[in-house]
């Protein structure tokens, strides 16, 4: 399969990339790892006239601490997230999620920025970012701004990004020490998108859930932040009744499509199962 023709640009800095995206207008697309965009271009489902390759921009790489936050450059690959020992210690949820994305070859090239900015409801990181309360650093011709992940996703492939803007980094507030987290993903085979998946972060106090946040993947046109499900377990010892309530609350907001991964009714049910499993595993890891 051969993609349609396009002009190729390889800027060296974010400033240069932004200027190009602004000049070239809506016919231009930024190219990160390209493992969503290039397959789409091969199928001719996407045919940008210009590709602005972000691969040579050093400032978009890397993982750093800033106050209580971790800031990850948009071009940091899933493989680099997995390999970072410091990140695994502070935020094990990211490594656990990245390991469940596609396969080794794709993880070497696929980036965190591309995963969160593409707006594909099948991508795993967006729900994790909703769960963690992350925000995205966005650069455009008008300057820089930050958009909360919870306000970023509008519909499938539709995000709060304006034309000419790009995500440059992901900012994640580090959950308190002793927190427990889990990403539970049901998939047909290794490398697949989720039939249903749930991300959980929680903290314990005296054996009871003190705080909890839940995100859901591939269960609607956008990732979902399951507030009611999380609320259902706060203040409980995560007894079976509380887990059941949380699962039901997650099922209530899930609106999956019927597809090759199963009928909508099944996928909805699996949303609850993933939430229940993720809650229990997160609790078992919390101190």
């Amino acid at each position, binding site marked *: *399969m*051969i*993609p*349609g*023709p*396009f*002009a*190729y640009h*390889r800027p060296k800095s974010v400033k240069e990339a932004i200027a190009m995206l602004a000049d070239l207008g809506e016919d231009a697309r930024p190219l990160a790892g*390209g*493992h969503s965009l*290039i*397959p789409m*271009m*091969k199928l001719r489902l996407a045919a940008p006239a210009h*590709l602005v*390759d972000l*691969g040579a921009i050093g400032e978009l790489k890397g993982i750093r601490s800033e106050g209580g936050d971790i800031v990850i450059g948009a071009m940091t690959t899933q*493989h680099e997230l997995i390999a970072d020992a410091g990140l695994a210690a502070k935020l094990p949820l990211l490594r656990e999620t990245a390991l469940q994305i*596609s*396969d*080794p*070859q*794709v993880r*070497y*090239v696929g980036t965190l920025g591309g995963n969160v900015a593409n707006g594909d409801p099948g991508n795993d990181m967006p729900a994790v970012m909703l769960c963690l309360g992350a925000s995205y650093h966005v650069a455009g011709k008008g300057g820089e701004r930050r958009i909360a992940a919870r306000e970023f996703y509008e519909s499938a492939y539709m995000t709060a990004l304006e034309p000419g803007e790009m995500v440059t980094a992901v900012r994640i507030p580090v959950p308190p020490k002793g927190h427990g987290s889990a990403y539970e993903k049901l998939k047909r085979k*290794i*490398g697949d998108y989720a039939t249903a998946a749930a991300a959980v972060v929680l903290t314990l106090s005296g054996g009871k859930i003190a705080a909890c946040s839940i995100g859901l993947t591939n269960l609607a046109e956008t990732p979902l932040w399951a507030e009611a499900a999380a609320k259902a377990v706060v203040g409980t010892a995560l007894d079976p009744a509380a887990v059941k309530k949380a699962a039901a609350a997650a099922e209530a907001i899930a609106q999956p499509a019927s597809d090759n991964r199963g009928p909508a009714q099944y996928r909805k049910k699996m949303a609850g199962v993933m939430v229940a499993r993720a809650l229990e595993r997160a609790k078992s890891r919390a101190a």
Partner: protein
Amino acid sequence: MAKIRVSLKVNGKAVEALVEPRLLLIHFLREELNLTGPHIGCDTSHCGACTVDLNGKSVKSCTLFAVQAEGGELLTIEGIAAPDGALHALQEGFREMHGLQCGFCTPGMILRAYRLLKENPKPSEDEIRFGISGNLCRCTGYQNIVKAIQHAAAKLAGAPVKEAAE
């Protein structure tokens, strides 16, 4: 569209060419450089038959443009044996342990295993299976591929190698 100059190292040799930006790396390797070891299997980033090593990473060359390899160092199955033709431990392992039947997935499988063993010289069986999860084989059932990689790992570590598969 205007062609773009791309220069990189392929199997240790400097290569330079004028290419259309939309030229996929796999087509560049097969059609411009006549390196037909990397195969086109699914052409949808799933099967791994097109896997090559680029800048120390296993990549699916059907999902990269040749222009993205600018300045890179690339290794294909054609470059994996020693200059005198002596087989790489992985090639020997696949032969000894019958790690292939039709052979279509083998170049991608070996290139992936090459990077896996660089990063993890003593992988467990589970680590091998997880490590090659981006490469599909429709013949072997993977059993002998795993044995082939274990054979190569042992050989590279200077350990005694197991007898060939029955």
